[in-house]
């Protein structure tokens, strides 16, 4: 269960418009009829990538050939709100994203993403807007998230980003999937269980 630390994520980035992008938008519920996460990548943002009536591709940035190889998603405020479905970050990861930079994140989405090793960092509206503009102007621009320094760099642009200490520590130490440590505390788990009358 040893996993590699994540200290930095680099790649080109795609800016997507809108605030409060919910997990139904990221992965519509009808694509959750599955017993594995394997095939979810192709359905990420499906209903905004394809015109629901004609089935044709829309002008969504994810359909823009210039962003085809983007591995970092740049978004607005409260990204990932709504349903707790892990299918949302799973679909983003399987689509090919390695990190999300946004103004802010909804809590459950954020936790699910961290556990998968998909770092989510936030920054001010001004910084996000500047990054979006820079990526739109030059889709080949290399964007780099440094989790040690907690900065994002893209060409001449460098700004500070935030992430709760625990998530940062977990990613940097390669312990973002906590299962091993949870299991290792078995004695303490059993002691807690014994102290709870309704569990007994």
């Amino acid at each position, binding site marked *: 269960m040893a996993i590699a630390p994540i200290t930095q994520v680099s790649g080109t980035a795609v800016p997507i418009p809108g605030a409060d992008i919910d997990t139904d938008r990221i992965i519509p519920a009808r694509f959750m009829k599955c017993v594995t996460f394997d095939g979810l990548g192709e359905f990420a943002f499906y209903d905004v990538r394809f015109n*629901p009536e004609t089935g044709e591709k829309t002008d969504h940035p994810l359909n823009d050939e210039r962003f085809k190889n983007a591995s970092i998603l740049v978004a607005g405020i409260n990204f990932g709100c709504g349903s707790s479905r892990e299918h949302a970050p799973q679909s983003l990861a399987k689509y090919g994203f390695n990190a999300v930079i946004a103004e802010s994140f909804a809590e*459950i989405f954020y936790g699910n993403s961290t556990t998968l090793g998909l770092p989510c960092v936030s920054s001010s509206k001004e910084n996000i807007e500047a990054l979006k503009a820079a990526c739109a102007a030059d889709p080949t621009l290399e964007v780099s998230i440094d989790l040690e320094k907690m900065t994002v760099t893209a060409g001449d642009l460098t700004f500070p980003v935030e992430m709760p200490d625990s998530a940062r*520590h977990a990613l940097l130490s390669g312990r973002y999937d906590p299962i091993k440590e*949870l299991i290792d505390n078995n004695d303490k788990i059993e002691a*807690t269980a014994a102290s*709870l009358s*309704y569990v007994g």
Partner: protein
Amino acid sequence: MRDYAMGKTLYQKVWDAHTVGTLSDGRTQLFIGTHLIHEVTSPQAFGMLRDLGLPVKYPSRTFATIDHIVPTVNQDQPADPLAADMIDAIRKNCDDFGVTYFDLKSGKQGIVHVVGPEQGITQPGSTIACGDSHTATHGAFGAIAFGIGTTQVRDVLATQTIAMEKLKVRRIEVNGTLRPGVYAKDVTLHIIRLLGAKGGIGYAYEYAGSTLAHFSMEERMTVCNMAIEGGARCGYVNPDQTTFDFLKGRPYSPTGDAWDTAVEEWSSFASDADAEFDDIVIINAEDIEPTVTWGISPDHGISIGESIPDPATTEGDEKAVIEEALAYMKLPAGTPIKGIPIDVAFIGSCTNGRLSDFREVAKFIQGHKVADGVKAIAVPGSQITAIQCEKEGLDKIFEEAGFEWRAAGCSMCLAMNPDKLIGDQICASSSNRNFKGRQGSPTGRTVLMSPLMVAAAAVAGHIADAREIFDVNPDAAVA
């Protein structure tokens, strides 16, 4: 009995009682006393468990049912092979790992957040997790209950614990008596409108005040259910005599001497009178009107007498949000919400699919008919709810009024079963989310409201004030 120093919230007490330790990344390893699972977010977790070669550590503390994909007509006939696979998977997983499963034949199946309380599995002072964001519903009993992702479902199955960060606590006091025609749903929509869809990020919400104290358990569940719609991962109400009366005699409730001990212990978890909160919000119940949404986020709420916002009167981010929402909703800016035609009316979901919801609507719809061209469905939250409604003849009242009376499931709240909007149909819905595409059509439109307001919209054929449709005097003296 636990000996607590004074000045703690229920959240703090439950957190302390369930803390296993501190993990190396600084998070708390929290014991999850009760784990609820359903067919959508659990199969991958069992797959991970098998990959790791691990058993379920406390199989007696996980309870399963199916709700999301269950058809509400011919419940036992999955709509397609994928749905059938998911039902097969949960049955096999529960069999293989020794987990209690309330299946369709049990007579106890239903929406997981209706089943838990109904069975007495949901208890005060406990921690409850489920791979579903509406798990906060169980907070109505004074439990700390929250939604988790599938990898965390694996963690709970394998260790009965998860890694978690502690939340701050915001006390939301609602005081006074709701006016006639105003319901718990309006309270929760009003709170979300006031504090925003992201206002609760980082918080647990403690719902308190005289209004909540007088609420039934089902009303409290409606309020707690939508905590996540306000950004708060969990919401709760302190346990009291109403809570204990509800739980007494339920299948999983303690009995005999154990009941008395349990009530004493449950009471001890309630927030202390001098508990400190990170924030306090106070709301006057009489200020709350029947509330409906006009947009694509649950915080896009207005009272039934108000007009749809006009982006021309705002600037910046707010303007962009309104424009995006109205472009999707195809609603005219600046005009009254009352009178907007609807195509579908849905009463059900983990927010408003309980016995009291159907009883309340039934009181008013007798003698009324669903308008021509409106498809109206009533979906009980559980098989037990359905049976009780049918015993009371409520199904007949709904059917005579022109509603289809269905079998239990999540149904058109998220439309993973055959109950879906078609094209850009607009639905008056007692559910919890009005996100783009939420009700099964990528262009479908949702207007959230209380069950009685849904009934009024169904009867009128357009969004309407239930107090006018059903002759409820809003200024009547309140009992």
